[in-house]
């Protein structure tokens, strides 16, 4: 599960980056509306952060 958390964090981080750069437009209203892509970037990065927190909880549980 630790590996899954890290992989998901990386995937969400990269997805956010791609939305922010406008490289991908899936699930956006239009391919050119900048603010909408920023929303997707923020949501992806928040999910990445949550995955990292999940990883942290698993790591400290494993070391105990």
């Amino acid at each position, binding site marked *: 599960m630790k590996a899954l958390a890290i992989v998901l964090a990386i995937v969400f981080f990269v997805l956010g980056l791609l939305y922010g750069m406008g490289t991908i437009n899936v*699930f956006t*209203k239009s391919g050119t509306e900048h*603010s*909408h892509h*920023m*929303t*997707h970037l*923020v*949501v992806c990065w*928040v*999910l990445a952060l*949550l995955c990292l*927190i999940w990883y*942290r*909880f698993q*790591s*400290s*549980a494993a070391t*105990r």
Partner: protein
Amino acid sequence: MTLLQAVVLALLQGVSELFPISSLGHTILVPAVLHWNNINRSDPTFLAFVVVLHLGTAVALIVFYRRQWAAIVRALVASVIRGKLSNDRDERIGWLLVVGTIPVGILGVILEQPVRALFGSPAPAAIFLAINGLVMFAGEALRRRQQVAEKRVDRPMQSLSFFQSVLIGFAQSFALLPGISRSGASMVAGLLCDLDHEDAAHFSFLLATPVIFAAALLEIPKLVAPDAHVVAVQAVIGGILAGIAAYLSVAFLTRYFKSNDLRPFGWYCLIVGVVCFVLSRMGVLS
């Protein structure tokens, strides 16, 4: 938009965001009933005004639950630093809220635009408002059946499982449909997870706060969009009135749900939904 329209929309937003009667449905139906044809819901100026109303509502919710939010944030930060979950009540509620917010966060960015484009007119909003009423009746009936037939008893909100919190958050996502109430859907889900009405409403309001606040923050660029000519007086008055209305609404509802249930709101939604649908079929709604 006139000042009177701004005041009515602000009060409507503040009240209907927290009462289980769908703010989105009402902001579609009320201008249609009153024939406010000068209001274009996709106009940048109107969108910017709506952002201010949402900010006012979110600030009111944060102010009302300020002590609990401060305790929740402190507990969450402490648990991340510690790297371990504890039995602390605020920490448990905090993580339940984080987990419960994920479904609406993901579904919101994916589905909000297409759903609004498909159903953002009076007739679908009226149908969904009537369905919202039926959902509340069904929720109350199922809860009574659970308690009588299965001998299930109420439990405190911190005893929810993370899976149940995700389910309640998922139910909240149905509020993307105009006419379905965010607080109504999440309260019904909370009731079916064995919360009492007071705790179901409390959890629903806490769960709504980050969503409303984040949505308003993410929409702030619309306030400074070049074609958004927001009249400062209307925006300021609208934001303050929406905040006051939301504060009074949450204060009323937290008392109301100590000893009452969702059925009066169910009747309201059912009747208003059916009447508005008939009016829209008759061509009376603009």
